[in-house]
């Protein structure tokens, strides 16, 4: 079973850049890496998705090295409203893509 690993928690201050790394050693060859944001009492919300190298959208960047065994979500200039849990999601090589294995989640706390 593929396993993903993320830091349990991170602290930051408003205006700083935050980088959260997810390790996924057994990612499926053809699958993408997706990151989600979850606020309390809400379902996870899509942030960004990528396959390799770098992807950027209006809220974040995603860096993926050539071996694809990890990925880093970068949040530029965080604000208090970015306090949430962030999950990475990858396919599961061992079970032929049938399962979607979420990381443990990283609880980001942004302080003034």
């Amino acid at each position, binding site marked *: 079973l593929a396993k993903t690993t993320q830091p349990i928690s991170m602290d930051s201050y408003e205006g700083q850049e935050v980088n959260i790394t997810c390790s996924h050693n057994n990612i499926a060859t053809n699958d*993408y890496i997706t990151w989600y944001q979850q606020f309390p009492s809400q379902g996870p919300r899509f942030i960004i998705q990528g396959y390799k190298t770098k992807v950027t959208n209006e809220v974040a960047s995603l860096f993926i090295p050539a071996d694809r065994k990890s990925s880093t979500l970068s949040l530029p200039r965080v604000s208090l409203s970015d306090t949430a849990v962030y999950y990475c999601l990858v396919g599961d090589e061992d079970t032929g*893509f049938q399962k979607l294995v979420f990381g443990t989640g990283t609880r980001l706390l942004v302080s003034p």
Partner: protein
Amino acid sequence: GAGVSQSPSNKVTEKGKDVELRCDPISGHTALYWYRQSLGQGLEFLIYFQGNSAPDKSGLPSDRFSAERTGGSVSTLTIQRTQQEDSAVYLCASSFLGVGTGVSGNTIYFGEGSWLTVV
């Protein structure tokens, strides 16, 4: 619909009773997923449907849990003889294509969940 819709949003039930949770995926989405999230915990995969078929049911916690999907659309997660440890939020998600298709943009969208409390 515009997003993944789940009902009921909240359910309090007595131990031993059966409950049904409903998920209405985004129109046109062929894949549907159920997850469970206990308070303060991560997301636990339960089951995945491609069309009406569930290729892998091994994520279901026990034989008290079952799920079905009809017409390639609505799905129902049924928990029989509920126990207190079943208390959690049950999240449904859908995507246009199934997992592992290697297609960019096959994003999985989540509903807001059904909050189940077993007393």
